């Protein structure tokens, strides 16, 4: 059992605001983990290299050294996905947890070559009574003029631990579009980082979360705009009922040289219970004059009737 301090924000704020990081107590980190075999890939004609060897991954941010090292030392499923130049592909990758596949430590590397495009759906699925452990990395390099859509679906049980680190590198005129559906896990902790180095690069992140019982979501989304005319758009929406807690930490960081870039961040949380709690830290950091940055966050009462349908 480990006590973990994870998901540090790129800039700290006051300690007593309790949002600079997340502390989890008594987390069971599997020592020995078997190969993950219940992997299903459909609609695939992408080049995917699957192996269970140790990976060697460096992250700019990530969730923290303990979990990153675990992936480097103990990963049991590594995927290398290559989208060739001018290809246009779609694929669904399903990790189905069961009694024989309770732990997944995965490293997914996606390379989108010039002018390629692809839609990749990655789904983590388990039975509702099964306690699973997932710690993964998805790292994407989008070369010039590529267009990658990734749909990430977390449907693990609400007694599982789900840790995921996402990192994107966007070159000139590339597009990375993430849709994250975050429903599962007792603790679902996400670190998302996009490095928009290329001029005219574009990153869109749409996230929906639904929290119930004692679920905890800690979402730390960091985007750094470095190229000119880069564009970031984040939409984070969700609902919390029972004792669920959501932390959203969103950073749009306009670095020097990101002239004419735009960044928008929009968060909307429906609270469906007095015991649910929403904590937000939508940051705009700016060291370039000629940019446009906006963020908005809100919470509203009386949305119960509309949102209850999603749970049922």
């Amino acid at each position, binding site marked *: 059992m480990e006590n973990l301090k994870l998901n540090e924000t790129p*800039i*700290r*704020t*006051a*300690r007593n*605001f309790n*949002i*600079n990081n997340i502390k989890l107590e008594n987390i069971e980190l599997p020592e020995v983990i078997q190969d993950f075999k219940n992997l299903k890939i459909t609609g695939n004609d992408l080049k995917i290299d699957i192996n269970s060897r140790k990976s060697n991954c460096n992250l700019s941010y990530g969730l923290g050294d303990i979990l990153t090292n675990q992936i480097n030392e103990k990963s049991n499923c590594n995927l290398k996905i290559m989208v060739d130049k001018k290809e246009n592909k779609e694929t669904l990758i399903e990790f189905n947890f069961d009694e024989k596949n309770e732990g997944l430590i995965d490293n997914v590397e996606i390379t989108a070559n010039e002018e390629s495009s692809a839609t990749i759906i990655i789904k983590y699925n388990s039975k509702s009574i099964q306690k699973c452990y997932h710690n993964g990395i998805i790292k994407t390099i989008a070369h010039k003029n590529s267009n990658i859509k990734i749909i990430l679906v977390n449907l693990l049980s609400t007694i599982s631990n789900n840790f995921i680190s996402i990192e994107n590198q966007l070159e000139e005129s590339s597009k990375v579009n993430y849709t994250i559906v975050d429903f599962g896990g007792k603790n679902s902790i996400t670190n998302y980082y996009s490095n928009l180095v290329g001029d005219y690069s574009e990153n869109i992140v749409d996230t929906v979360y639904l929290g119930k019982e004692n679920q905890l979501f800690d979402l730390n989304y960091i985007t750094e705009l470095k190229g000119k005319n880069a564009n970031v758009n984040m939409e984070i929406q969700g609902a919390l009922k029972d004792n669920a807690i959501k932390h959203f930490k969103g950073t749009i960081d*306009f670095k*020097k040289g990101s002239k004419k870039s735009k960044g928008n961040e929009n968060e909307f*949380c429906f*609270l*469906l*219970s*007095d*015991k*649910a*709690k*929403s*904590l*937000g*830290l*939508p*940051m*705009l*950091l*700016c*060291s*370039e*004059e*000629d*940019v*446009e*940055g*906006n*963020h*908005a*966050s*809100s*919470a*509203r*009462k*009386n949305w*119960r009737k509309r949102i209850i349908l999603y749970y049922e």
Partner: protein
Amino acid sequence: MKKSNIEEINRNIYDIKNKDEYDFKIKKGLTAEIINEISNQKNDPDWMREFRLKALDVYNQLELPSWGPDISELNMNEIATYVRPKSKLNSSWEDVPEDIKNTFDKLGIPEAEKTSLAGVGAQYDSEVVYHSMKEDLIKQGVIYTDMETAVREYPDLVKEHFMKCVPVYDHKFVALHGAVWSGGSFVYVPKNVKVDIPLQSYFRLNSPESGQFEHTLIIVDEGASLHFIEGCSAPKYNKVNLHAGCVELYVKDNAYLRYSTIENWSKNMLNLNTKKAIVGKNAGMDWVSGSFGSKISMLYPMSILNGEGAKTEYTGISFAGKGQNLDNGFKVVHNAKNTSSVVNAKSISKNGGVCTYRSLVRINENAKNSKCTVSCESLMLDDISRSDTIPTNEIKTDEVEFSHEAKIGKISDKTIFYLMSRGISEEDAKAMIVRGFAYPISKELPVEYAVEMNNLINLELEGAIG
């Protein structure tokens, strides 16, 4: 001749530097011996001496903040925490020593007292040198005096409220304040008394390598109202000066308090000030803040809405130029039903200045049917400056309406082009836009102070634009 560089500009009235003359200056550093000596010099009652020593213990236990601007250059062994000027407390400007009086004259304080204030307190270094209030307010039972007099003459009232709203454990510089506080103002407005004309306290730090730690304690009793204005400035020295004041505001049920500040500390000042208000049932607390000076500022006024139906508004602007790092913002805790808050924060960065808006909105479980609206706008005047927005929003109830908006950007090229097409120079067009940007704040101030704020904006803009 138009000055083209900010360094060339004389900050005129704010930079008046009197000879460093004093009646007593404590040796630099922060030890129990020094705290005892401050207590001796101030003839503290025993409870206050014990309080100071306890606060020193807390100071030694607490760590420096691990966030915000770098304040590692602050060395308390290089700061004198108590400087008693060569003046006692006076109730007539004629009795104030000439050099001190001249300083306040040039700052316009006696003139403002005649024309637009109901009372004035003027602090020079560590002690208040002038305090006065109109007779009719005295007759209505309003108390407006320096803190030392309040400790002596109203001990029960002071003991009940002193550092209860802002406890010494809040953070390291509150603990420091508790140990070395000196000067400041005490105001008590009795039940149902409306003070229609503002009171003002002005804090001037003249002595180099020293600190100012004034304590302001205001109690606005049930159904009463008050507008209190705080001003502060200091001449610039080469070494660091420190301001760690503390403002505690109690706004009782159905009362109203407006607290306005125009802060223009010199650009060698570390301004680590703490301000907090506890707001009662159906009471209102409004903050108006203009932050122009200081090398580093960490200032986050706070309203705690404890009474049902309590309201608060924060309207603030920060203007950071070369060498300045202004980390300002606002904190509000909704702690009862039907409470509401409105935050309107603006910042301008130029010539390499850094502005950060840092905030907290906390809406607790018991704050059903509460509303909070936050708007935050940042303007960058060049590409060597920096502007950050770091808001924390914590919502713990479903029956709430909360919205937060922030924008960051530069002056619109189209707007400048439009104004230039009307025959206005580019420089004037930009200045006009900046003044318009600041207008929502200046309009909240009494006209004399709005003029002062606009003058400060003009002063800051000279050489920054064009």
